[in-house]
């Protein structure tokens, strides 16, 4: 049972790290677009 639990924990962690990584990348891309948009406005 413990092995099964560790496997589910591992899968959960991989999914969470994937989501977090995606959110960080998205955050960075949006910031870059915001900066570009500010430059055009100026």
């Amino acid at each position, binding site marked *: 049972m413990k092995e099964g639990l*560790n496997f*589910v*924990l591992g899968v*959960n*962690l991989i999914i969470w*790290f994937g989501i*977090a990584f995606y*959110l960080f990348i998205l955050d960075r891309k*949006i910031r870059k677009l915001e900066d570009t948009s500010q430059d055009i*406005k100026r």
Partner: protein
Amino acid sequence: MIVKVLLTLWMTAMIVAAFLYAGAAAGFPGQTSRILFFHVPQAWVATLSFLLSMVASCMYLARRRVRVDYVALSAAELGLLFCILATATGSIFAKATWGSFWNWDPRQTSIVILLMIYGAYFALRSAVPDPEKRRVFAAVYSILAFVTVPFLVFVVPRITASLHPEDTMNPANPGMDPKTLKVFLGSLFAYTGLFVWMLRLKIRLLRLEGRQEPEFIITEKLRQEGEKR
């Protein structure tokens, strides 16, 4: 940035604690009770999102600010996403405990109705071409849609016989193990933080998209011409 890194670490800690720190609750087959740390926070965030969408819609109707409409739209989108996640995780739990993924239990039926109600919100938004009218219609619909939320989430499952386990936050039934309670509250906090992060990203994205719309460009040009004079 630091807050986001801390949130990432907090969520990681909660996932590890949900499997290794908190014990499995008695009365549930195997380790199925651990779904509590994921399923309930997802349902909580979905309800919170729909509430926020309704509040922002009321504010939009009162002030007619486009930014407030962005909040209403983003919250409704995230509400629908977390509602789908809660349905999926609940369905996995149903398979493990009740024998099949879908039983048309009152909880499952009410969540499907909720999904359809909020699905219609996006259908309505995409059906109205005029941006101003779209925002007004969506705001009115979001307020009306939220009227059904307390009924579908809290009332229906209580007035009908359900296979769903009793409510964890029910003060009349305070039977949660201290370790489980700690992880559960930590997970609620982590999911709320994740919701805020995703909400802010979506609002910023909508704001950027809004800058490309002809309505915004015309307003900006008129403002700049006014400044030159």
